[in-house]
């Protein structure tokens, strides 16, 4: 029964990892940018939530209504300026630039919020309580909520990408930028929209993480970015539902690792990550070979 509980916890935490990973995967799939600042942006989302809650006294669970649009706008602006400028030079430059962004964000947060940890909604009953099934299985409402949110976000993204006009343009630009230009599409604007979505989803992940655990300025790179990468690689680059599958597998292996020995939690996750990289480098849900 202990194992069943572990696996359930692992699956649920996979939802959080999917929220971290889907934006990373989208930005790589559409504009071939590996955003090394992705984890820091989640944390920025968390800090913005702290600020927004302090100023407006909005309930924690509703803070995303303000934070997500703010981060989406930031995503569009950063993409159209700094990241696009890097892309115009070379794909490699985007690695340097997003790494630089990561350093700048981390130090900015240290300067502004200090190295102390923050968390969101410690006094909120929904966030801190849980329910039990039988004697061994305990499920936190928060984890269940995060998992549901992740599934809703992925469903929404899928609907947007495959049913809407802009989603179609995003897929077209991902396939062939020049051909898209010949159809009158400004791919830079489309890139901006994709970045806005990526920043919005990762901000949601950051808020969720702030409720689930606590974050400090360095949490973005030493935890979130790594988990996001692992989830994307396990699930398959460019695959939307792959990020959820990857997140779930990462979560379950961490839970099982922790059960074996407390210090093996993250090790187990990375062993699975490496095993997938060696045995099935295209990920479990492989996209078409072309991109």
């Amino acid at each position, binding site marked *: 029964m202990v194992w069943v509980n572990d696996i359930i916890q692992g699956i649920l935490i996979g939802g959080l990892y999917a929220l971290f990973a889907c934006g990373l995967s989208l930005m790589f799939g559409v504009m071939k940018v590996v955003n090394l600042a992705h984890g820091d942006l989640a944390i920025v989302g968390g800090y913005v939530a702290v600020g927004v809650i302090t100023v407006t006294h909005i309930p924690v669970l509703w803070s995303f209504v303000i934070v997500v649009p703010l981060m989406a706008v930031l995503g569009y602006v950063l993409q159209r300026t700094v990241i696009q400028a890097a892309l115009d030079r070379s794909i490699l430059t985007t690695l340097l630039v997003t790494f630089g962004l990561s350093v700048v964000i981390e130090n900015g947060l240290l300067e502004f919020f200090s190295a102390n940890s923050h968390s969101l909604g410690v006094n909120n009953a929904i966030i801190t309580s849980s329910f039990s099934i039988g004697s061994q299985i305990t499920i936190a409402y928060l984890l269940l909520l995060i998992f549901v949110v992740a599934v809703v976000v992925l469903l929404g993204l899928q609907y947007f990408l495959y049913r809407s*006009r802009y989603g*179609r*343009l995003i*897929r*077209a630009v*991902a*396939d*062939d930028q*020049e*051909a*898209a*230009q*010949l*159809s*009158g*599409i*400004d*791919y830079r604007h489309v890139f901006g929209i994709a970045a806005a979505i990526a920043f919005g989803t990762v901000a949601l992940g950051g808020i969720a993480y702030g409720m689930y655990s606590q974050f400090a300025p360095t949490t973005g790179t030493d935890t979130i970015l790594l988990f996001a990468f692992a989830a994307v690689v396990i699930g398959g680059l460019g695959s939307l539902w792959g990020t959820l599958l990857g997140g779930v597998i990462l979560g379950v292996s961490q839970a099982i690792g922790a059960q074996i020995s407390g210090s093996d939690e993250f090790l187990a996750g990375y062993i699975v990550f490496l095993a997938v990289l060696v045995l099935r480098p295209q990920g479990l849900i492989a996209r*078409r070979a*072309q*991109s």
Partner: protein
Amino acid sequence: MSEAQESGSEPILEVRDLTVHHGQLRALDHISLRVFPGEVYAIIGANGAGKSTLLRTIAGLNQPTEGTIRYDGKDVTRIRPERRATSGIAMVPEGRRLFGSLTVEENLQVGATYARTGPWTIERVYELFSWMKDRRAQRTEQLSGGEQQAVAIGRALVANPRVLLLDELSLGLAPVVVQRIYGMLPQILASGLTVLLVEQDVSQALRVASHLQCLLEGRTTLEGKPSDVTPEEVEAAYFGLRTAPAGEGSEEP
């Protein structure tokens, strides 16, 4: 309309002294051309003559080092490719360049997203290529080369361009398929389009063109109406043989 173009109406597309470099290599060397409304203007030449570079530069995908491109009386040399597309210059690029993960219909929908108003709709493209409607839900990756070429033409048409640039329609296609695709040209022209095409297949180009220009290593070696040039002249201009008479400025004013 065809009478008007003879008596000195304004060219819809005018390229003057266009020079384009690929790094150190000079791909185009002071190329000029004037395309009048309703024409089928064919650029021929061997591999590496600069034909595709010329079309790509007109569409805005390559930047010239010298020279100007005027479309509809306005200088568009520094305008971004997507703005040229929405103002009425559409291109069917070499190698089709379809959106491979999208379906046939989605490819056409993307082409129609920023379309000008005009006679072409997705329905009309389905009428032109009768097989297409039944297979509109298929990914274009699964189509044959000829079918992909048809979708690429359809994607350009639904934008309702005034000038259609066709880059090597025959490339990699069986002769029968090429015949069939070029056979569609009269129906496309009937909607009032002007066509500037690039073709390696000289006989095909001669069959459809109202005006001919031959490039060799980035320079013009022959220019004129297909009826005014002899096969020997074309051959000489195409391969760069000595006997080629300079076609420069021999056009009527």
